[in-house]
């Protein structure tokens, strides 16, 4: 809850009642706004008695209505954890309408001619304007941010997500007050007197100033609270996100590492996977591996890292759209990484890819055992089928350099075809 809300509620409860039982409007057991049941609960009398008393009081120049409206306006609503009712916001505006109407009724009862009626309406307008201003500066209303009604027109009336709206309504309320005061003065003043109108304007300005003075501290406090709250919310959200991530990934990884501490390979695999995921979370904007070349390569490298517990030092210069041919290049690179992981007997493999105007190139290098290309049996399909053959089918080239004891480098190149360049330009547009 906010300070403002407490202040207002507190002032009323301490002034009128012993503090042991707070006076508030309950959310349940209510017919209109819960004033009657709130009073009944507080006074310890049946609800019916309070309601009857209010209805009876209605006979005295609408006193019942006025009382109800006044209580409605000032009583805080019972704080509950459940979702607030959707209409509360609009409902809280109604009392001021009610006050205005009550005043009109009162006027109509006391005077019987049309002038008084007009004056009554103007006073009503004043009351509504003041009500809007006062209501607007009520800090508790800000909690309704999430409970703005679904209907667009209603949202436009009560939503205050936007500061401009707030200003608009505040000024609107002020104009209403001014109009009302000017009107009252003009109507009651002798007809045709210019000084009276001027006086009216002055009165109106004084009235506005008064409203401003009254509302200023509230407004100031509200703005401060609003800002502090927003910052707090953002911080809280970030914290929650971080906590969730650490819980879901880091803590689980650490637990797994503790249980597998004897298995060095497994520990390394877990640590590496976690490191990569944290890094991506911290530094990298995520791109879809099905759409971008760099993201696809990094994903392939990550899979190999996870599966074979090696580290792949991935460096990608430039990036491009992913199409079928690029996907084939990535698949061939992945196969080369798998080969290096399985046969080279090393812990680190380098993966370098470069996107140039004319071609895409990928290099996979290890410093492992190496092998003799001529000695590879015809029946082994890994290199011939998955790497060389695949590249050839898609118009690219694969070259494998290896020497026993000196490691292996697989060089894959794929010319940037006219179609793919055109497609990339199309996508960029």
């Amino acid at each position, binding site marked *: 809850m906010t300070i403002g809300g407490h202040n207002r509620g507190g002032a009323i409860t301490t002034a009128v009642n012993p503090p042991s039982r707070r006076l508030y409007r309950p959310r349940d057991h209510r017919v209109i706004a819960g004033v009657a049941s709130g009073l009944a609960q507080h006074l310890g009398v049946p609800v019916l008695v309070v309601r009857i008393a209010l209805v009876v009081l209605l006979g005295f120049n609408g006193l019942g209505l006025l009382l109800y409206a006044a209580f409605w306006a000032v009583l805080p609503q019972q704080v509950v954890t459940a979702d607030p009712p959707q209409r509360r916001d609009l409902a809280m505006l109604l009392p001021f309408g009610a006050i205005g109407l009550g005043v009109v009724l009162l006027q109509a009862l006391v005077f019987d001619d049309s002038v008084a009626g007009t004056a009554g309406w103007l006073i009503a307008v004043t009351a509504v304007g003041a009500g809007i201003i006062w209501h607007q500066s009520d800090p508790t209303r800000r909690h309704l941010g999430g409970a703005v009604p679904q209907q667009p027109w209603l949202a436009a009336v009560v939503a205050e997500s936007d500061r401009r709206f707030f200003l608009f309504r505040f000024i609107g309320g002020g104009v209403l007050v001014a109009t009302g005061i000017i009107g009252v003065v003009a109507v009651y003043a002798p007809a045709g007197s210019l000084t009276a109108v001027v006086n009216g304007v002055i009165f109106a300005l004084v009235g506005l100033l008064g409203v401003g003075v009254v509302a200023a501290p509230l407004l100031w406090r509200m703005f401060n609270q609003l800002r502090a709250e927003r910052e707090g919310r953002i911080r809280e959200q970030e914290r929650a996100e971080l906590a969730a991530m650490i819980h879901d990934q880091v803590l689980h990884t650490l637990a797994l590492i503790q249980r597998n501490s004897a298995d060095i390979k497994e520990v390394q695999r877990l640590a590496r996977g976690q490191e990569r995921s944290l890094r991506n979370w911290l530094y990298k904007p995520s791109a879809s591996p099905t759409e971008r070349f760099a993201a696809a390569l990094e994903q392939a490298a990550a899979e190999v890292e996870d599966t074979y517990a090696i580290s792949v*030092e991935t460096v990608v210069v*430039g990036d491009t759209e992913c199409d079928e041919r690029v996907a084939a290049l990535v698949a061939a690179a992945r196969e080369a990484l798998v080969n290096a992981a399985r046969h080279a007997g090393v812990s680190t493999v380098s993966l*370098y890819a*470069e996107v140039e105007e004319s071609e895409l190139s990928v290099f996979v*290098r290890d410093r492992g055992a190496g092998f003799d290309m001529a000695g590879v049996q015809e029946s082994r399909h890994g290199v011939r089928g998955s790497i060389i053959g695949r590249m050839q089918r898609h118009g690219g080239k694969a070259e494998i350099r290896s020497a026993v004891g000196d490691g292996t*480098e697989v060089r894959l190149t794929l010319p940037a075809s006219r179609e793919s360049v055109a497609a990339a330009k199309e996508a960029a547009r």
Partner: protein
Amino acid sequence: MTEVQDTGTDRRLTVFLVDDHAMFRAGVRAELGAHVEVVGEASSVAEAVSKIAAIEPDVVLLDVHMPDGGGRAVLDAMRRSHPHVKFLALSVSDAAEDVIGLIRAGARGYVTKTISPDELAAAIRRVADGDAVFSPRLAGFVLDAFASRPDVPVADPELDQLTNREREVLRLLARGYAYKEIAKELFISIKTVETHVSNVLRKLQMSNRYELSRWAADRRLV
């Protein structure tokens, strides 16, 4: 270079550690003990600046992310007054902006904290000798930063563009080649490879504002 280092081990290099994690400092100190002489450590920018000025080590191992400004602040404070102190960035972050930022600020190399102790010792030695330490990833970032765009006018082409040879060297570095292997591949001497790499580093540190802002804009850093 102000002093020519003996490549032998008769004179131990003095190394200073700057890192806000005490555990990590202790670990590095233990790992490096056999190779170099760790002469001091600091956990904050202010502490680092005053101690480095007093001790004047050969090489400073510099963490990138610290609460009060990070490695960048230390470099900015020390670079002018102590040009003979070499800085090697040692960070857990390998984000492009961190790496390039530190190099531009004057670090002679950049390695990540997953580096093995032997490799770290070798990197320290190389930095102390006046060379640059380029990881494949750093080479990739540099290639990215200097990606050739023929239609872009360059104020000082001599300074801002990489030569073809330098580009080749960087590509091989990025592909995981060691200096020795690069020399063999390109039929040049290791010394030439080192010169190329040093030139790249210099260009990176001195390349003009236009280049830098383009690089940053490309990565939506500004």
